[in-house]
């Protein structure tokens, strides 16, 4: 199924005590003098939190930046949909928080599968992010006296989450977008919306450009630069149904992988516990209900199987508040992987509610009795409103029905401490990389990581590469550029030329179902061995029987989707292989063979305390595994307990 390389991946984590690594490293990194910065060109792909913040910050430093996104405006990137909040170790509430505690919680929350040094840096930088965003005019929630307000969030016992109602991602992204627009106005950044990256241009082993398709005109374009920064998000849409936006895809990352960049830990996928359940086979996506709801909502199912009564008619004595029962100290705030599996356990056992039995209740009755409807409305009004829009049920009166759904992907392209992949000049930021969340991400940590990477880490580390690498001038008609462009064009022609009978969506749905059934919340050796050949068969079918109406010129949304699904078809196999190879349970990766007596994830630290970086060979050929051992010098990996 795969081969193992004998080398070890070098993370380039600097020496020295944990607390001093980043400061020392920043001093050791070479600088580019201000007058020389304008001689360098940097491409940033994607304009979510990581991409917008990186492009804006590099523009401010004086680099020439080209920013690309497939949406019609950079402000629409899917970071905008993040609801709950952003963590920082400010300790404003004086409740015992610190940089070290945020670091510790994140390492533990990731089930000891993340790099200590990266996570510590993330916790250090978290405070600067809040300051930066406040200065930009991000309207964070405030106390009456005018100071910043905090709330607690899944998996944490301190209040360290900053928020803007239920629209934190929107406000942080608009802050970064506005900073980006300011640089566009000064011409330091050139903006290329409605461009989809189709391939990476590699010259003499280094990333030197990209091929994009102008979605409106259908024309392919070559853009060259001294470095390429990929901020293209996660691969949750491999499952078809997820909380991701419809356009989210793995293409940019997968194309880089095919050009030599290692893909790390693809099996680490996060299934979010609080989403609106599936309602029919036309379902196009799943909607997340922010985890912040678990601060006041209580999760339960009936104690009797197939209890037909309405929720309001079931007395407390007949309710099973299973999170509070199983995890008395964290209760409803247990981390996402734990809460999701607990819901699956109850519904598998026949205690689920709703028409399909694939739902559990999230009930605000007690919170409304305690605080009054007005208080609950102020905290969660927009979320309740959204729930009612979708389900036509009023959550002030009847409990919400929720179920887990694919939400975030911790895996991504492998990067070193500088956020550079194994391909020189290719940097990967935000959800697109693998680096900070290990096997499970804690709530309110994704926004923190995206902005940390973009505002503070990349602008410090990229200088060193540009100052030291040999980067001969490259022009758009360099033979490698032309070859990459031609290959991209041929692939599009091939997709249109199949002229079969099935739509892209029908293939995507079928792939998604396979992934959810065999690589979802619980995985087994037998199931994974069964699904891998089925993915290959489906991929073969895809290339024989796909129908893409229309042509390659002008806007063709079927063609855009076809390219993305073609890449998901290849990527899904690697995800399954990674899940099969990792014979342990950790965080979002749960192998049924490896669990404790009470059904919790059982890690195998002696065998799997490493990052799995996969090298591409050819489609259908065995990938090669490169390992990066994880060394824990400051914390001792223990069994996570939230009891």
């Amino acid at each position: 199924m795969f081969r193992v390389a004998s080398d070890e991946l070098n993370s380039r984590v600097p020496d020295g005590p944990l607390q001093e690594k980043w400061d020392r490293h920043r001093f050791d990194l070479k600088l580019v003098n201000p007058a020389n910065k304008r001689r360098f060109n940097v491409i940033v792909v994607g304009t979510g939190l990581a991409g917008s913040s990186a492009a804006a910050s590099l523009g401010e430093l004086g680099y020439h930046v080209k920013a690309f996104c497939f949406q019609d405006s950079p402000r629409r990137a899917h970071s905008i949909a993040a609801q709950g909040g952003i963590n920082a170790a400010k300790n404003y509430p004086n409740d015992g928080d610190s940089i070290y505690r945020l670091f510790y919680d994140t390492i533990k929350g990731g089930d000891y599968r993340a790099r200590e040094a990266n996570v510590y840096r993330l916790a250090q930088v978290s405070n600067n992010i809040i300051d930066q965003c406040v200065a930009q005019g991000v309207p964070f929630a405030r106390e009456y006296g005018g100071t910043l307000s905090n709330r607690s969030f899944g998996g944490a016992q301190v209040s360290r989450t900053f928020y803007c109602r239920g629209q934190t991602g929107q406000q942080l992204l608009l802050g970064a977008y506005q900073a980006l627009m300011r640089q566009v106005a000064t011409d330091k950044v050139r903006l290329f919306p409605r461009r989809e990256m189709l391939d990476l241009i590699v010259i003499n082993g280094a990333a030197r450009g990209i091929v994009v398709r102008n979605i409106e005109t259908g024309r392919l374009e070559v853009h060259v630069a001294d470095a390429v920064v990929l901020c293209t998000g996660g691969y949750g849409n491999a499952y078809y149904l997820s909380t991701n936006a419809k356009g989210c895809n793995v293409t940019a990352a997968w194309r880089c992988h095919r050009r030599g960049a290692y893909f790390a830990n693809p099996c680490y996928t996060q299934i979010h516990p609080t989403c609106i359940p599936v309602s029919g086979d036309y379902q196009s996506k799943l909607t997340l209900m922010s985890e912040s709801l678990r601060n006041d909502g209580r999760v339960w199912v009936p104690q009797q199987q197939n209890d037909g009564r309405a929720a309001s008619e079931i007395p407390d004595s007949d309710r099973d508040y299973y999170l509070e029962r199983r995890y008395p100290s964290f209760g409803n705030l247990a981390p996402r992987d734990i809460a999701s599996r607990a819901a699956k356990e109850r519904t598998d056992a026949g205690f689920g509610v709703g028409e399909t039995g694939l739902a559990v209740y999230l009930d605000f009755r007690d919170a409304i009795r305690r605080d009054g409807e007005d208080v609950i409305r102020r905290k969660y009004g927009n979320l309740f409103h959204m729930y009612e829009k979708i389900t036509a049920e009023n959550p002030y009166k009847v409990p919400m029905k929720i179920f887990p759904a694919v939400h975030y992907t911790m895996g991504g392209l492998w990067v070193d401490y500088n956020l550079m992949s194994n391909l020189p000049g290719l940097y990967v930021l935000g959800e697109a990389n693998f680096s900070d969340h290990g096997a499970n991400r804690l709530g309110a940590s994704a926004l923190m990581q995206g902005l940390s990477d973009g505002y503070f880490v990349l602008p410090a580390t990229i200088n060193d590469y540009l100052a030291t690498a040999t980067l001969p001038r490259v022009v758009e008609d360099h033979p490698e550029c032309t070859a990459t462009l031609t290959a991209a064009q041929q692939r599009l022609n091939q997709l249109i030329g199949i002229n079969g009978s099935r739509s892209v969506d029908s293939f995507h749905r079928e792939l998604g179902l396979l992934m959810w059934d065999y690589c979802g919340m619980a995985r087994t050796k037998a199931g994974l061995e069964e699904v891998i050949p089925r993915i290959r068969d489906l991929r073969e079918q895809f290339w024989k029987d796909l129908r893409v109406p229309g042509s390659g010129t002008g806007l063709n949304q079927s063609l855009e989707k076809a390219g993305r699904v073609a890449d998901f078809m290849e990527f899904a196999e690697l995800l399954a292989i990674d899940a099969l190879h990792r014979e342990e349970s950790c965080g979002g990766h749960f192998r049924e063979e490896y669990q404790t007596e009470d059904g919790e994830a059982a890690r195998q630290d002696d065998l799997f305390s490493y990052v799995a970086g996969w090298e591409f060979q050819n489609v259908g050929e065995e990938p090669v595994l490169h390992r990066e051992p994880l060394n824990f010098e400051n914390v001792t990996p223990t069994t996570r307990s939230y009891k």
Partner: protein
Amino acid sequence: MSSDKLNLTLRVWRQSGPEDHGGFQTYKLSGVSTHMSFLEMLDVLNEKLIAEGEEPVAFDHDCREGICGMCSLMINGQAHGPDRGTTTCQLHMRRFTDGQTITIEPWRAVPFPVVRDLVVNRSAFDRVIQSGGYVSVNTGNAPDGNCIPVPSSTQETAMDAAACIGCGACVAACKNASAMLFVSAKVSQLATLPQGKAERSQRVVNMVAAMDREGFGSCTNTSECEAACPAEVSVSHIARLNREYSKAILFSDT
């Protein structure tokens, strides 16, 4: 007796490209579940068209959670359809009745040219923001977040304005294709907060000039924009923009 399946007649604007004149095409769609979202109904239509060998209807959409601002559509003459405070992606078919005819058009405004079918180009909004819709602060310059206290009422007002999703419904709903609600939302957010005060005069003057340059029309206070706004941004922000603009023109030395 209400059924949970609808039979619909759809009149959809089809336009093959920016140069094409375009026109309505009529499609019959049966067995539409009332639990579907409006966009899921269009997905079903598109699957049917593809199966019949036709080209699917192009429409913009992304998050399908009402926050990205990508989806649009004039539905029976109303921007984002009949529900208040709701984007097209959050509109559900239970809002329609069996046998109904639904007319679906793109945003119609000179600054938003049609790209294809129901897809328009809204980059004019980006250019308006580029003219001043930000606080000029570089990364790394910021003092501690609690240095500047912002009373929660001020923050709430700023947040009400900042909730704008940039979808363009305000422009599409306005008989003059005015962008005043969009522009005022950003001006108002940043003029309200202490962080934005230093540049407030320059900002409002530049953003209004950019808005005019892009070809958006004048505001005549009919408030259609507010009624159409899925983020429920209030026209009181337009009043604040007007005050800011007058102050800037009359008293500012910038």
